[in-house]
């Protein structure tokens, strides 16, 4: 089952100096990449580095503005995803896109079902082929069940099965392990390795260095839309990679904050929701920044949402300064001084098609109303005040918030919640998808706020951010808090260990 090389010496896929812009926003200024057959190539970079743009160009979703795109040495141009598929490229996204009502088998073969006479679909053959694919992958999935309700891990395997049945020569995996448990990651890696050994070219995008060092043989770093460097994994270290990703020394990136710690403000006891999180217990004091660290999918955002009231929880209590916060009631939480800057800024934090003014004042409408009436003049006044305090870059208050940059959007969300004068701020991935300059602004702001007595619960998947900002780090793994580390004890290793609980032997590369 080895793939024959069409032209020896040519990389399976190559991008040279590719650029892509959307109006005024430059997503990619110089993207370069060389995927060889028989290899697993890692692509790393912070959010906003241009990785997903590269993936979408390869997938045929976007067309590049300039630069070369070579497939097996031939210049290529895709105007549709169908073309990219036909050329032998398969992309497995973090969130698989399957058809929930249809069976696993039909999902794999949709549009290409094997047929008999009269174009009649040969279901028996299709099923046999599906079973064969799963056997090759070494997994057991019921080919007849609908894909609705399958775990993300299983769905990804189905996507891979799709790719193999299409005889994909290039497989791109975009943050595939984000929502997987340890066992599922191992299964995925075994599959990836066998695909590599068959002669295919794989690309692996991930934020987890231990996985990159475990699985890949080459790594390319991108930063701010630019290609930075490529090296064989064996010849580089995590520190070097981080330095390339971030562009400066890690240690002094985040201003350390010093603040007097006050009373317990947020007290969470025994919080549990079956299947999501269990026995979550912690407190946050006034002036304190507590970080919830862990791998993506560990359940941190779910805990935050449950505390705020958007998601349910079955047992446990949440209280603010002694007052019980009612369950499942965001309005009541807000009244008691709780604020949540959510993980998904565009879908949960903002109403994208609404104006800056409306978004900024969305949480304080009650205070702005007089006798139940709300006037836009008052909204504009309040919005102006808060937007300028956070230095939101926009020309007018009625600009649609969806047109602002990521950093400015985050500022609007922050302005919205700070306007409620909360006593507890929960902030989920404060600097995801934000440019470096605004990142620092956000960190400085959080620092200042802690200094004024705000209790901050920060969820972050970026270790340097966690280590730099937090007074205490709570590590979450599969819904449970597995470690509580004071600033002095929190190191990249201790946090990652508690987050993954993997055996130290395979962790040599992580320092």
């Amino acid at each position, binding site marked *: 089952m080895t793939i024959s090389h069409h032209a020896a010496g040519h990389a399976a896929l190559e991008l040279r100096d590719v650029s892509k812009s959307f109006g005024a926003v430059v997503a990619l200024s110089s993207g370069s990449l060389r995927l060889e057959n028989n290899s697993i190539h890692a692509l790393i970079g912070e959010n906003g580095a241009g990785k997903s743009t590269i993936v979408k160009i390869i997938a045929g979703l976007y067309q590049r503005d300039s630069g070369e795109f070579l497939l097996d040495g031939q210049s290529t141009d895709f105007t*549709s*995803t169908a073309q990219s598929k036909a050329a032998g490229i398969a992309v497995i996204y973090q969130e698989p896109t399957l058809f*929930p*009502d249809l069976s696993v088998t039909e999902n794999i073969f949709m549009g290409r079902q094997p047929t008999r006479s009269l174009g009649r679909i040969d279901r028996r053959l299709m099923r046999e082929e599906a*079973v064969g694919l799963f056997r090759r992958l070494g*997994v057991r999935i019921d080919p007849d069940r609908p894909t609705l309700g399958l775990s993300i891990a299983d769905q990804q395997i189905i996507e891979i099965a799709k790719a193999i049945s299409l005889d994909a020569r290039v497989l791109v995996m975009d943050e595939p392990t984000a929502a997987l448990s340890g066992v599922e990651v191992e299964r995925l890696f075994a599959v990836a390795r066998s695909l590599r050994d068959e002669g295919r070219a794989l690309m692996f995008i991930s934020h987890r260095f231990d996985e990159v060092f475990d699985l890949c043989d080459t790594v390319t770093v991108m930063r701010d839309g630019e290609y930075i460097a490529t090296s064989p994994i064996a010849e580089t270290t995590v520190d070097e990679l981080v330095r390339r990703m971030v562009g400066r020394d890690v240690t002094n990136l985040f201003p350390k904050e010093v603040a007097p710690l006050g009373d317990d403000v947020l007290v969470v006891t025994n919080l549990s929701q079956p299947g999501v999180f269990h026995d979550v217990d912690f407190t946050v004091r006034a002036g304190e920044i507590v970080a919830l660290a862990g791998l993506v999918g560990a359940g941190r955002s779910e805990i935050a949402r449950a505390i705020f009231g958007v998601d349910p929880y079955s047992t446990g209590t949440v209280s603010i300064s002694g007052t019980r916060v009612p369950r499942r009631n965001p309005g009541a939480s807000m009244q008691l001084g709780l604020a949540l800057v959510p993980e998904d800024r565009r879908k949960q934090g903002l109403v994208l098609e609404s104006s800056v003014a409306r978004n900024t004042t969305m949480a304080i409408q009650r205070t702005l109303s007089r006798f139940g009436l709300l006037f836009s003049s008052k909204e504009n006044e309040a919005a102006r005040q808060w937007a300028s305090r956070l230095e939101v870059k926009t020309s007018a208050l009625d600009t649609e918030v969806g047109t602002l940059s990521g950093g400015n959007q985050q500022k609007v969300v922050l302005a919205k919640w700070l306007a409620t004068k909360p006593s507890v701020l929960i902030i989920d991935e404060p600097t995801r998808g934000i440019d470096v300059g605004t990142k620092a602004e956000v960190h400085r702001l959080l620092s200042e706020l802690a200094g004024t007595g705000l209790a901050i619960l920060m969820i972050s998947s970026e270790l340097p951010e966690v280590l730099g900002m937090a007074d205490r780090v709570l590590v979450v793994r599969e819904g449970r808090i597995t470690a509580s580390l004071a600033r002095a004890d929190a190191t990249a290793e201790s946090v990652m260990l508690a987050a993954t609980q993997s055996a130290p032997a395979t962790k040599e590369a992580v320092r």
Partner: protein
Amino acid sequence: MTTTTASAPAGQRILHALGGIAKARETGILVALVLVVIAATARNPNFLFSTDGFRDLLLTPSILLLVAVGQAIVIITRNVDLSVGSTLGLTAYLTGRLFIDVPGIPIILVFLIGLLFGGFLGLINGALIAFAKVPALVITLGTLYIYRGINVWWTGSDRINASDMPKDFLALGTKTILYIPVLTIIAVVVLIAAGWYLRNQRPGRELYAIGSDPAAANLYGLKVTQRVLVAFVVCGALAGLAGVLYSARYGTVNSQAGSGFELEAVGAAVIGGVAIFGGSGTVWGAAIGAYLLFTINRALPILGVQDFWQRAVVGVLIIGAIVLDRLLALRQTRKLTEARDNDND
């Protein structure tokens, strides 16, 4: 991970399939239909056992059956066609006019023209929806008005009477072969063809994919625009065919023919298990749903319920069907998620 049944013995597979059939929605409403017929016949044997009774039970709903099948096809793609009633009426009138204005026109040609005309009206819908990306609800609401308006304007103060149409054609309306009305046979043939195509042909399966997740379908590279367009053309064509059948059955056609059929067709599909958000359900279910609706209406007076309450019963059935679907879906998701969690532990 759940286990595969790759090498399960044939007997086990057959049992598995039978179990699936037993639990299917289509079976449920078929049973309901049978029960209603039994209950009504028990009260009044003429319901089923008189030649007229039996024939009528099979004959009249066949018109709605055609419309419901077309509607189901559209709903499966996550759309809806509210203009089918107007299409039916317009085509019914066209049928009459053809016979009047073109004497001696072969009946088969009239059928063909009706089919094509309906398909053309469906094409207009489909083109606007697939290309302008406007929700089907709004467009077909508009064409509902437009087509009906054209119908009324064309009819004027006229009306097609039974005497205007050739005897052979009208005879079709009541002729039976082996006790089964010809019109029913036509409708059932169409049903079988549609059912077969949706189950066994690639474009048919793609309709389900498009309704199940339109974004995924686009990402997958399916020809969404083309398929949706064809779905509306077929829906219109079937409504057109239903219009021809309507003329044959009733003989008299006025400008209000077919009014309200669109909602009945949607109701039949929903009762038959076609999810309003697309992606699941079968034309078989929609067909049985059409029969169930009609038969219940006929059975109500016999069972002692005044037939004024018909629409209320239809409403309860529709609401009951979608509540049932929702509860079943919730239960299935919970079961599938639990199974997955159990496997992972």
